[in-house]
């Protein structure tokens, strides 16, 4: 089916198209909630079962790096929201600036995360044959770190996908596709980015802040 401008051929009008795209993104985000939900459930059960071991393991994480990342990500959500505003105001260059800012902040997050992961390798906190944890509950601590890597790793994968999404949006934004009145892709891209941010808002306290002051 042909396309005329922004309108795809199987839709009646841009309004229907925008409604459809928006609902689609919300439904997709619901699936993502269920996806991460499984990990959060596993975490909750083991935190309840191995309370002290999880606390001890959590204290091995670098809270300041985690806090910096939290701030970076919240800021990136802000720049993303500004980008959506810019597209509504039909300001092409401003939109591009905000998209780039969001991508840069996302990159900072991933870099810090990479640094944290490297630290874990050095300190023998990666589950597997080289895992070393002092104290009697090292096996339970190993479960904590397995969940740490699974949860932050899955989150990082979603961030990387988000970066790719932002790049695509940036390219089309530069061409002016979203500043001519129809900005649904920017809005929906923003929704995805905010979701990835919110997942981190849950991950940070659960992984970094439990039993901080033992």
């Amino acid at each position: 089916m042909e396309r005329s401008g922004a309108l795809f051929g199987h839709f009646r009008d841009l309004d229907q198209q925008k409604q459809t795209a928006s609902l689609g993104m919300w439904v997709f985000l619901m699936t993502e909630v269920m996806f991460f939900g499984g990990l959060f459930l596993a975490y909750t059960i083991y935190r309840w079962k191995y309370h002290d071991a999880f606390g001890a393991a959590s204290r091995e994480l670098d809270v300041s790096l985690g806090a910096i990342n939290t701030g970076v990500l919240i800021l990136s959500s802000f720049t993303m929201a500004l980008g959506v505003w810019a597209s509504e105001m039909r300001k092409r260059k401003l939109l591009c600036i905000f998209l780039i800012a969001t991508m840069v902040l996302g990159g900072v997050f991933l870099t810090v995360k990479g640094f944290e992961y490297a630290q874990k390798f050095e300190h023998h906190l990666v589950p597997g044959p080289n895992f070393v944890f002092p104290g009697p509950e090292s096996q339970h601590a190993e479960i904590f770190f397995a969940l740490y890597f699974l949860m932050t790793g899955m989150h990082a994968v979603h961030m990387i996908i988000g970066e790719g999404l932002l790049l695509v949006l940036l390219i089309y934004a530069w061409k002016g596709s979203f500043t001519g009145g129809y900005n649904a892709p920017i809005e929906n891209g923003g929704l995805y980015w905010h979701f990835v941010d919110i997942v981190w808002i849950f991950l940070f306290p659960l992984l970094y802040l439990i039993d901080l002051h033992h």
Partner: protein
Amino acid sequence: MSTTNANPPPATSPPQMPRENYLNANYGIRSWLFTTDHKRIGLLYLFSVTFYFALGGFFALLIRLQLLTPQGWLVGPDTYNRLFTMHGVIMIFFFLIPSIPSVLGNFLIPLMIGAKDLAFPKLNLLSWYIFNIGAAFALYSIVTGGIDTGWTFYTPYSSIYSNSQVSAAVIGIFITGFSSILTGLNFIVTVHTMRAPGMTWWRLPIFVWSHYATSIIMILGTPVLAITLLMVAAERLLHLGVFDPRLGGDPLLFQHLFWFYSHPAVYIMILPAMGVTTEIVATFARKNLYGYKAVAIASLGIAVIGFLVWGHHMFVAGTSIYAAMIFSLLSYLVAIPSAVKVFNWTATLYRGSVSWQTPMLYALGFIGLFVIGGMTGLFLASMGADVHVHDTYFVIAHFHYIMVGGAVMGYLGGLHYWWPKITGRMYPEMLSRAAAIILFVGFNLTFFPQFVLGYLGMPRRYATYPPEFQVLNVFSTAGASILGLGYLLPIIYFIWSMRYGPVAGPNPWPATGLEWQTSSPPPTENFETTPIVTWEPYDFEHRPDLGLPKPERAKRKPLEAPGLELGE
């Protein structure tokens, strides 16, 4: 439902194939592999799922052959364990879950609601590719030795002890799960935003309601399976041991996560078949569906309550008595909406004009076998009886009654019912009736003895068994060979019909849905002009355009009764 281009008056000359339709709109393999037409994608799926059905069926054949003798004469236990695992994995994930939604749902939903396509045509095509990429991983795991964990992948066997290709297989299922999620997402959004003018929610065909309910399960349940299988793969490949008992991992955690999806998954498999059955019963009784609203709401009820019962797979797994009680109670509750549907289908026959053409044979067979399967579900929902029959052939018989006697019959019935719409041709009626009867007989002979076997104590997943179980196993294998024959026939005559079958015309049955208001096969854009809907669903009474003569009955009870809600 009236459209702006009225149905032509009953033809005096035989119907003609429409000159331009979605099948001949363009030619060449690329026009199929890069299509975004939901109808062509439905056919792509038909091709794929038929292949996997045959593969899964082949494994079933080997299983039944092995079980002819108590000592197991055909294969050793390692191979047998791979056979039943692959049979389950392929049939569930690569046949049953996609079958009706991806073939018939894709094809029909836009037609039924008066839209030109689904909400996201490109995502639709992507979901077919994702399906096949995931399936390729599964095929890879088969040809490199197979997996032997059972389709349920219980830890720690699957995460630590099994030496088979578990990672490849679970990654394959993980990937294919996204096909399911995207299909569900597409359906939900489509039904919300793409309905034609006048197509209100309470005018939607039950087929659409059923798929809407199915899609809710697909989008909320499948992601949980995805992350669970990913955790198993992560444990095997990356030593991220969340399920390892030596680290304190809880084997029950996997079971809860797994069944949280896999129980609702069975409703993914049955709800679409219920939708198909509803369409067929109304059409072949030539009257309104009794209790339309009740049936629509029951579909949603099954989807919702279906998420709350997963623990009934774990009554002897080591859970607490209280948890078992809650799950048992809810499991009984989920039977109620299904019962409501069965009663409403049966009541639809009252004062109808009932014809037992092939689709109706499948629909009525579905109802009968679904009732038996569903009733035996009550045995399993009850804690006291489940202890004895859990993990025995009783369970196997129960779920095959629902999935084969139910879902597969529904799928075949749907294929027959909409074959004229999809291809423009009719299949041979006598042969198709014979096939339906052969399937029904073969099916019951295969699986009814397994109820008895299960109560006698034969556990499932056994490559060898004590000799006193042999007679029943032989009966079951005999039935399976008849069943296999039954499945071959439709493949043969469907292919034959595409060239030699009589031309069907737009509305051969006739039926009331919007999909029958366009040509057979439909044009690529489905309708020449956007339909405007004014009719209630299944309203044969007010459809003179269908050309059906009024019955010669003197008495007629008053037709409209005020203030009815659930009934109509």
